[in-house]
């Protein structure tokens, strides 16, 4: 077999284009049928699955939000009882953060990064397949337990002692903690893949100063994930230990510390915001360049701002704890560091404004979402500066002011760019355009509905309305604004429904897009829409930061890859000079089996610690299958 392979060792330079594409398709295509679907390692298929699953969770989380607004529309309403309400707000937060926002951003990265850096598949593609199944299992665990009335009810932050063994009854908090394990596992896996893809698989010539800004943002995001997730991993594991085997790490009666939990949680929890936000700014930069018809102003400043944000993200966590009674001097330090994050944020806003100023804006739907992003995100950023001030925060902390603030940051700052990005990259992913007129309607409904829903919450907070209350008494002056908010949220929902309708309809009946409908500058538009399983017939050679604008007529290509087995180019970290041909793993069922075994082990461990022992045996078996030597020839330099 091995001999035969070497004998038939064909290079991409040996064939003409149609023959080459046929050969590549033979070796890279995913077979039809269920087996093919479970075994695929194609980053585009997995990325698409990720995006769709995450949007399903977005819709489910939206339903929860509407239930809460129904309950809060009137004082002392009895639509939901306190127990259900607490489950719902916990589910809403956990679902939106762990099952929608983080995964959807990583999913877009999984789909786009290999295309934008000009390679044939993501690094560690089997790990990528594994990460999706684990993510799906974590989401299913959370939602099935919610349907069974066992959903977590301790908030998405699960503060001890409320989530501890003494006050958190049943298995609810365990389910929350184990759902965290699933999502952190999948997020860590994806981050490692993205870092390696970006650092080692860039097309020849794409030196660090030519990497698209979205790819930079995914690189920084992935490093932030790799550094932040271990904190929550320790937190959720120690919480399970406290609950399951009676360690007393968080029990003050046994010299444990309640605040330790908050430090661990927020050391992850604050960077989490930037894990969601940084990919979004990468999307904004990409769309701004395309629709302003010029490269983003201040490329170096933008990259530095991304890195600075990623680093500063780890120095702010205490601003979630300003009213826990920490020493005043320490709090002042965290005020300063929290304020300082406004500097890189400001740099980016000003650079986008400069880009639009100097460019020639074309008002397509993605640009509308970029404009909506700037308008709302600046409000969210400024209220962020407000809550960074310790004394200011003592009045608004844990009130609706904060609810308003972080929805401005997360919806205005991340979901608006994401929706724009869907309109922008939809043609690449499906080969079809979304509707421009429905897109405008969806934008205006979402933009107006969003502001009418969330702006009044600032005022409710200043009027003393705390968060996480399932009802309020009629003698409080919050009734009118709450009703207003609840009614306004219907506009927001209408916008999202229109968006979903447009996406589903366009996937089948949208106008054909062609390779590059927006005349965009980055590499993903150099291949067909949707891209073939091997991404590019020839690996492009990059000579400029905006290759399709600066080398418009003909893109130089690199040759010499084998086409009778999966191969891609490994290049140097800084200057992206090709150094080796590397085999890329083929489809395999083992990641799916490994994910299944891991799922069984993690879920059983909620009920008995012995599951960790017995459950690891099937995992080991699956991993042996996964890593069984395949006799692929050594990589060549």
């Amino acid at each position, binding site marked *: 077999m091995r001999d035969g392979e070497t004998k038939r060792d064909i290079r991409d330079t040996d064939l003409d284009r149609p023959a080459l594409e046929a050969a590549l398709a033979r070796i890279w295509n995913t077979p039809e049928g269920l087996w093919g679907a479970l075994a695929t390692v194609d980053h585009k298929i997995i990325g698409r699955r990720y995006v769709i699953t995450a949007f399903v969770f977005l819709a489910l989380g939206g339903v929860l939000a509407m239930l809460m607004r129904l309950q809060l529309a009137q004082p002392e309403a009895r639509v939901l009882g*306190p*127990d259900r309400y607490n489950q719902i707000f916990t589910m809403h937060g956990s679902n939106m953060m762990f099952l929608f926002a983080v995964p959807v951003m990583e999913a877009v990265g999984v789909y786009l990064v290999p295309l934008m850096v000009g390679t044939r598949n993501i690094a560690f593609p089997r790990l990528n397949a594994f990460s999706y199944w684990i993510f799906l299992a974590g989401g299913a665990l959370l939602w099935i337990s919610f349907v069974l009335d066992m959903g977590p009810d301790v908030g998405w932050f699960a*503060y001890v*002692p409320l989530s501890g063994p003494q*006050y958190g009854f049943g298995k609810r908090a365990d389910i929350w903690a184990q759902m965290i394990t699933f999502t952190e596992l999948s997020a860590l896996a994806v981050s490692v893949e993205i870092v390696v893809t970006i650092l080692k698989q860039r097309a020849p010539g794409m030196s660090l100063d030519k990497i698209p800004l979205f790819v930079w943002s995914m690189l920084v995001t992935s490093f932030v994930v790799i550094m932040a997730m271990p904190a929550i991993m320790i937190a959720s594991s120690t919480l399970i230990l406290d609950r399951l085997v009676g360690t007393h790490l968080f029990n003050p009666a046994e010299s444990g510390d*309640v*605040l330790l939990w908050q430090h661990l949680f927020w050391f992850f929890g604050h960077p989490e915001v930037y894990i969601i936000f940084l990919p979004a700014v990468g999307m904004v930069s990409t769309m701004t360049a395309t629709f302003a*018809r*010029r*490269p983003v*102003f201040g490329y170096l*400043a933008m990259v530095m701002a991304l890195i600075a944000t990623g680093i500063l993200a780890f120095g702010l966590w205490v601003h979630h704890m300003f*009213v*826990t*009674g920490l020493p*005043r001097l320490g709090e*002042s330090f965290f*005020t*300063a560091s929290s*304020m300082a994050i*406004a*500097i890189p944020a400001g740099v980016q806003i*000003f*650079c986008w*404004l*400069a880009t639009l*100023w*100097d460019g*020639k*804006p074309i008002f397509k739907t993605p640009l509308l979402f970029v*404009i909506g992003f700037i*308008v709302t995100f*600046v409000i969210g950023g*400024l*209220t962020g*500066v*407000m809550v960074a*001030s*310790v*004394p*200011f925060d*003592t*009045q*608004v*902390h*844990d009130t609706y002011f904060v609810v308003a603030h972080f929805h401005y940051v997360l919806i205005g700052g991340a979901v608006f760019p994401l929706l724009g990005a869907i309109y922008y990259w939809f043609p690449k992913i499906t080969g079809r355009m979304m509707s421009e007129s429905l897109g405008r309607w969806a934008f*205006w409904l979402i*933009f107006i509905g969003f*502001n*009418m829903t969330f702006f009044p919450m600032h*005022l409710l907070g*200043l*009027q*003393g309305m*705390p968060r996480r209350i399932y*009802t309020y*008494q009629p003698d409080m*002056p919050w009734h009118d604004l709450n009703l207003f908010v609840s009614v306004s949220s219907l506009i927001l929902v209408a916008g999202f429904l229109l968006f979903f309708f447009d996406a589903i309809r366009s996937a089948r009946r949208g106008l054909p897009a062609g390779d590059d409908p927006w005349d965009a500058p980055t590499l993903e538009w150099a291949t067909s829409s949707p891209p073939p399983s091997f991404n590019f017939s020839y690996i492009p050679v990059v000579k400029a930061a*905006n290759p399709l*604008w600066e080398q418009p007529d003909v893109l130089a290509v690199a040759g010499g890859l084998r086409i009778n087995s999966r191969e891609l180019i490994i290049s140097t970290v800084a200057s992206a000079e090709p150094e080796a041909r590397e085999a890329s793993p083929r489809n395999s069922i083992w990641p799916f089996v490994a994910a299944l075994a891991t799922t069984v082990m993690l879920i059983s461990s909620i009920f008995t610690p012995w599951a960790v022992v017995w459950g690891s045996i099937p995992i080991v078996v699956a991993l042996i299958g996964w890593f069984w030597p395949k006799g692929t020839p050594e990589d060549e330099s």
Partner: protein
Amino acid sequence: MKLRATARLRALIPALALAGCTGWQSAIDVHGASAISLKHLIVMIVATCSVVWALVIATLIVALWRRREARESAIALDPRRQRRMTLAVGGAVAATVIVISAFTVSSFFTTRQLTAAGADNLTIKVRGLQWWWGVEYFGSKPELRFETANEIHIPVGRNVRVQLEGLDVIHSFWVPSLAGKQDLIPGRPNEITIRAERAGVYRGQCAEFCGLQHAHMAFFVVAEEQRAFEAWTALQRDNAVASSDEEVIAGQRVFLSRPCAACHAIRGTAANGKIGPDLTHVGGRKYIAAGLLETTRGSLAAWIADPQTLKPGNNMPMVPLAAEELRSVSAYLASLK
């Protein structure tokens, strides 16, 4: 259009803030020393930020709709304009640094001003429990100590040090009209100083999610002149007064013979439970069940008859009582002024 919508919302702020002035639990309608200086800081920062936002949006509008000359291609950039833009962006970043430095410094000084302890201190202790507040007053001598629940009286114009102790889960003590909030954390005693500048009743509410009835965990701070405050403390220190009214005596019998006394204390009787609020002067408090219902004979009866419907999940069980018993026990509790 979208800009106008937002602008309209912004214009609503002062109007809605005025509407908020009727609130007795508001960070805008303030009557305490801390809350007043916090409001100054809030107004200063919000006003500055509004100007910043308006400037950004104005720039955005001009950037989008200004007239511009045709350019050859997307990458043909005018170096002179690039330099001007670099200057503009640099200037904007410098302005950002100045603004946030000013915010940081003023925050620091506000915090310092708030924590500067006054000499004229009265110290009380507040305990947070699921889902009510225990309050303890100390005197100069041990026998002057007394306990009450869900209602704090303070003298106007004096600093009151409130020691905060979390007993089960984390709660947060917050009377926005008087001061910012501070958490009550099991195993970590905290402290906050409040000071009312005007007599009045200020509502507070637990601000940290603490389980099922987090929404119904309110309390009241009654600020009154020194003389009234002293009269109130004198009354609170006393044991419950035995009444001669027949219904009240019957009610006391019901209270003592039923499970009520296992959880609640009424000083001067055999009831000395520590699990629920001290009821020695419950009839004199403005509200029962941590701000849930105004104290009347009727509301007491309703609460005792079915606490789980009024406040689902709270720790008070439904004690089956005959109609006659319910009537007399509520009369008894209402009489405990």
